Each structure stands twice: as C-alpha cells, then as structure tokens.
C-alpha cells in the first residue's frame, strides 16, 4: 500500500505543475488570432502526425545520435582539461583568458567559421555541440578540483598517494559533485546547440525540421517541435538522474554517514 501511495505521489509531483501550466496556456491561447502564437489545441492536434511518423527515425534519431556523440566528447575533453587546469594555478591563469575569449563567441558567429574548418557534414554539427557543452563541464571541473579539501591534499601527500591513484580516488571523487553539476548543465545546452547546429547546411534533424517549419510559416508544427524538445529534455534528465545516483552514490552515503545519530 505504502509503495503504491509513494509511486502515486511521485507521479502527481511530476505532472501537477506541467498540467496546470498547460491548462493556463490552453485557455490563454484559445482565441489567439496571431499566427505566430496558435492555440494550444491546434498545436497538440498536429503533434502526432508531425512527429510520430517517419520523422521520428528520419530526423529525431540522427539528431539524438549526434547529441550523444558531442556530449560524450565534451565530457571527456571537459574533465581531462578541467583537471589539468584546475590542478595548477599557473596553468589556469595563463589559459583562462583564452578560454574565456573563445567561450564568449556566439554560436551564430561560430558556425560559419566551423563550416570553413570542418565542412558541412555531421562532424561540424558535433563540433558545435562540443563547443557549447564543454564549458559548463570544464568550468565546474576546474572549480571542483580547485576546491578540494586541503586536509585531504596533505593526507595524500603524507601517505605518498600519487599519480593515477590520487587522481581517481581523490581528485575526481572530490570534484565529482561539481563535475556532475556541470554535466547536468551541459545536457540542456547540448540540446539547444543540437538544434542550432542543424539550422543551416543540414539535410536532416530536429533543427532542420524546425527551420523548415519557420521558413514555411507552419507555426503549429513549429510549436509542436518545441514541445517535443521539452519532452526530450525531460527524458534525458531522468536518464541523467539515474546515472548520477550511481556515480555519486559514495557522496550521498558519506553525507548520510556524516549525520551523527546524536
């Protein structure tokens, strides 16, 4: 009985606010005469036909594959570079301004430059995703590595724990709460860039479809695409939460253990 109630409660928590917002949207837009903001009823009406046909495998899937590739690459690059930069004050001070310079270049300006370097195929799209995803991961990793407990630093030195062991069991573990925060941020940034990378020079993808709807003034379809993007975001974040609970299990356990019974 308890389990059912708890599951029910979780479902309610998941759906309550979205349902309320959707209802507000439904009634607010019901009489809308502005083509760019059609009634929610129409948007939901076109949604199944637009997305649950061949678009699912022909556009959504390729986009998600590119997103995964870019995200994983960004994760690797961000963590490796982040540890390297966070561990040395000098390295950080030299490299940071250049990184901040690159970070500030807006995607619409960056995309043509990447087209020149890497062509107009999948590689460039993945590079665009990496170019945006790497920053939250990198920045958070650097801060996580910088902020490790100095007592533990000394402990490692005393026990002559060095090299790969120190990296794995100490540095990465200590920084992992912040690294995970960065990875979380990078996920939604990745979805946004996935769309942006496909607006130009594409032949398939969610962003490509989106651009098509915009240039053809098919606003109900465009807004249905927005809803799909949101749903993808929710699904991916649930998956992320599952992975996160495994990776940070030690952290949660430690925090729980720190709660002394007294």
């Amino acid at each position, binding site marked *: 009985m308890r389990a059912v109630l708890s599951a029910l409660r979780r479902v309610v928590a998941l759906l309550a606010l979205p349902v309320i917002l959707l209802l507000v949207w439904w009634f607010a837009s019901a009489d809308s005469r502005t083509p760019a903001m059609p009634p929610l009823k129409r948007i939901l009406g076109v949604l199944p036909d637009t997305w649950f046909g061949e678009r699912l495998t022909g556009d959504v899937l390729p986009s998600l594959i590119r997103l995964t590739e870019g995200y994983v690459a960004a994760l690797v690059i961000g963590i490796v570079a982040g540890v390297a930069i966070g561990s040395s004050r000098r390295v950080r001070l030299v490299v940071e301004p250049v990184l901040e310079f690159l970070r*500030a270049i807006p995607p619409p300006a960056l995309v043509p430059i990447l087209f020149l370097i890497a062509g107009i195929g999948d590689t460039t799209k993945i590079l665009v995703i990496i170019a945006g995803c790497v920053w939250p991961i990198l920045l958070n990793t650097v801060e996580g590595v*910088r902020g490790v407990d100095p007592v533990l630093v000394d402990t490692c030195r005393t026990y002559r724990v060095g090299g790969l062991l120190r990296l794995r069991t100490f540095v990465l573990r200590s920084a992992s709460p912040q690294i995970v925060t960065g990875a979380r941020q990078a996920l939604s940034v990745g979805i946004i860039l996935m769309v942006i990378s496909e607006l130009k020079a594409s032949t398939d993808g969610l962003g490509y479809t989106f651009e098509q709807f915009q240039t053809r003034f098919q606003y109900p379809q465009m807004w249905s695409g927005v809803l799909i993007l949101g749903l993808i975001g929710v699904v991916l974040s649930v998956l992320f939460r599952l992975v996160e609970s495994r990776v940070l299990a030690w952290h949660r356990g430690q925090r729980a253990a720190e*709660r002394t019974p007294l």
Partner: protein
Amino acid sequence: MSPSRTSLSRDTFLNRGTFLKRGMFLSRVGDSPALLGLLGLGVFAALLEILPRAGVLNPEYFPPTSRIIGALWQELGRPDQPFKPSLLSALGDTLVTWLTGLAIAVSAGVVVGVIIGAVPLLREFTASTIEFLRPIPSVALIPGLIVLLGVGREPTLVIVVYASFWQVLVQVLYGVADVDPVARDTARSYHLGPLRRVRYVIWPTALPYVMTGIRLATTVALIVTITGEMVIGTPGLGDNLFVAYTGGDVPVMYALILVTGLIGVVANSITRAGERIVLRWHPSVRGEVAV
C-alpha cells in the same frame, strides 16, 4: 680559515648576481595573474597571425590578427551611419542589454533557487517543469516575441533572461542540495530560524556553486544578447556583425567577434575578482594563495 683566493672570488661572483637569478625573475612573472593571462592571450593572437600568413588557414576567410585589428581600428573611427551605428554606440547598446538581462536572471535565479532548493516539496513539484523548459532554444521563441514585443531591446532582453536564468537556477539548486549535514544538524539543535539557516548554513555551501553559475550565466547572457541582436535586429554589436557578415566584410566581422571575445575576458576577470572577495574563506581561494 678563509678559502683560497680563486674559490672565494668564484663564490662571491656566483652570489653577487642574486637579483638577476633566473628562478627569481620567472617567479615574479609567474605570480601575477594579469601578466600570465596576457601571456596566454599573446600566444593565442600570435598563433592567429602566423597560421593565416603561413597558409595553414586560408587568409581570405581567416584574416591574420593584424588585419583584424586594422579593421577594428577603422571601425572605431567610423561615425554613426543610418543603418550602421558606430562601434561605440553598438557596444553601449550591447552592454546595457547584456547587463540588464544578466542582473535580472541572476537575482531571479538565486532567489527562486534558494526557495525551491530549501523546500523539498517545491523541488519535487517543479523538477519536471524545469527539465522541460531548460532545453528549449530561444530561437524557437523569437517569432512569437517579435510579434509581441517588436524588434527593439525587449525581445532580446527576454531571451537573455530566459537563457541565463536556468544556468543560475540549476547551479543554485545543486549548491543548496549539497549542504553539509553536520552544519544543518547544528543549526537545527541551535533552533536557528529559516532565515538564519539560509544565511549561515545553506548560503555558504551553495556559494561556490552560485559563483560558478554566475560565471556561466555571464557569458551565456552575452552570447544570447549578440545572437538576439543578429537574428532579431536589436541594435548592438550583433546587429553590426550581421550587417558585416551579409556584406561579406570578413575583417570587420572578425573585428566584432574580437570585441565580443574581449568583453567575455574582461567579464570573467571581474567575476573572478568578485569570487576572490566573496569566497575568501573557501579552500579554492585560500589554497591557492598559500601556494
């Protein structure tokens, strides 16, 4: 007994040039954040000067740094034209849009984040909505915003706040969640009220996360400001960039990108400085100072 003459003079000679000793010179440079940063930027700029000239990058599409700076210099001297505001006026517009949006996003993000983060019930109920709204690109909202708000500063401001808010919010939520249980229990046993608890327990743990969030949001806000200016046509650097791009004026285009990048660098230095003050007590700042 003094050593023989030759060895004495050799020792004295070696000891004499202490102020010229190699290690000491390097350590003087090696301690200054500003000099090290400039070193990094200098190497980067030199690389971008050499590669196009050497032909590794096509100079037609990747002009060397010197040409970009030349174009920047010309742009600075160009007065306001009917459709191409002067560089300084565009810069001013961008700064106002960016900083306003950032200020709103950070305040809203921190306040909402602390409230939601501190109340588990709220966190549970808002989680799905946050995860749904976060990945929606501002590009999607632009047609609707143009219709509602026109093509001035307002629609760009909206997307700037929209995009930056989530960065701050997520960081704050993570920070609040990471509260040290010992501190939390201590607060409870001392019967600290909710406001006190926020100030003494939640806030210090969350602060490093919040500062990272501000650093992330600062650049995101800048990027979205320029993007909005490019796509919507709001006056600012992005608008000038779009006009340069459309006209095929590659050096000016890169000059404007250079300005944007430099704003990012300066903004980061300022937030880092702010971080050093606010997080004085945190190991990341303390540890480095000790070294």
